[in-house]
């Protein structure tokens, strides 16, 4: 990990390092989200926006921070909820496939996604 961090960032303050890590992490999450949406054959039923909350939004993200975000949708209906439930399941799989997720972290969203919604 140390080898990948630019020299300037490596010798900067902790806050700058966190900011750098957060931006990298954000790129990863955005790419995974876009891929998840494009993986579904159907087009999204309405326009939407993903927004991060917590450490990712505050740019205090670290390699082991949780991914926390919400979705703003244009209209609320069961069809839209069902579509984004599927997107989230795919997103979860993509994150698990990075092979850097501890088992418990990977399992908790599954239960909330599939069983209770």
């Amino acid at each position: 990990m140390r080898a990948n961090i630019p020299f300037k960032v490596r010798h900067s303050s902790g806050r700058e390092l966190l900011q750098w890590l957060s931006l990298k992490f954000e790129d990863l999450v955005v790419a995974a989200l876009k891929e998840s949406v494009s993986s579904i054959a159907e087009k999204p039923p309405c326009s939407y926006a993903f927004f991060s909350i917590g450490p990712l939004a505050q740019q205090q993200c670290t390699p082991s921070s949780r991914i926390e975000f919400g979705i703003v949708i244009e209209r609320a209906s069961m069809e839209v909820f069902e579509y984004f439930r599927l997107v989230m399941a795919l997103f979860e799989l993509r994150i698990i496939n990075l092979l850097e997720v501890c088992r418990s972290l990977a399992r908790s969203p599954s239960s909330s996604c599939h069983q209770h919604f």
Partner: protein
Amino acid sequence: MPLARSLAFIQLSPALLIDTITAPQTDFPVLHHRTLSPIAAGLKLDYLGTVPFRSDKQLFFRLIDTPEHLALWQENTFFEIDSSVSLLMAESTRFLAGDGRLYDAYRAEVSRILDRKQDTKKLRLRQQRALKLIRNEVEAFRPIYNAEPNDRKYAWLPPLLQSRRNAHLLLCVRSLFRPGSLTFVRCCHSRIASFACWRSTLELQRRSRRTSGTWWTCSLPEAS
């Protein structure tokens, strides 16, 4: 055969413990209830979890909705139920992907609610909340004194807590049960040099695994 089964369950137990500790809604009584917590209300981490469908909490924790409905988190009713979520949804959000106009609409709706002046007071809602937060922080870090009047000595706190910086260090140690993130953030906020801090975090975690469940302290390097 029963012995083999027993061994299997023995192997299962640590995995179960780790799962339980890292569950999103686990409280962290790191002090094992043997001593009082230095923060009166204790710490609660990871409220929202990984995805917006937090249906294991109550229904209104679902973080997918129209801008108007999501902004309702800022209303006093919801703020009283869980202020952490309201605060996160107010000031700690950042656009990731999708239609930026929807996110702007959400931000505008949140600002409309927070800038609303209360009926009886001249303060805006966001000012009221800021004051309340500061009051809570002051209360949380209030030193705990002996029961006798005019006795200014600490009742139970070790010298560790006699400065604000050390209080941060204590938080570092308290958060060791989480995978590195919070420890790292806390270290950075305590103005400890970033890579010294990262090494220290790994070291703390290594030691934590070795002495899991015991209370210990460790000195961290200062920022240069």
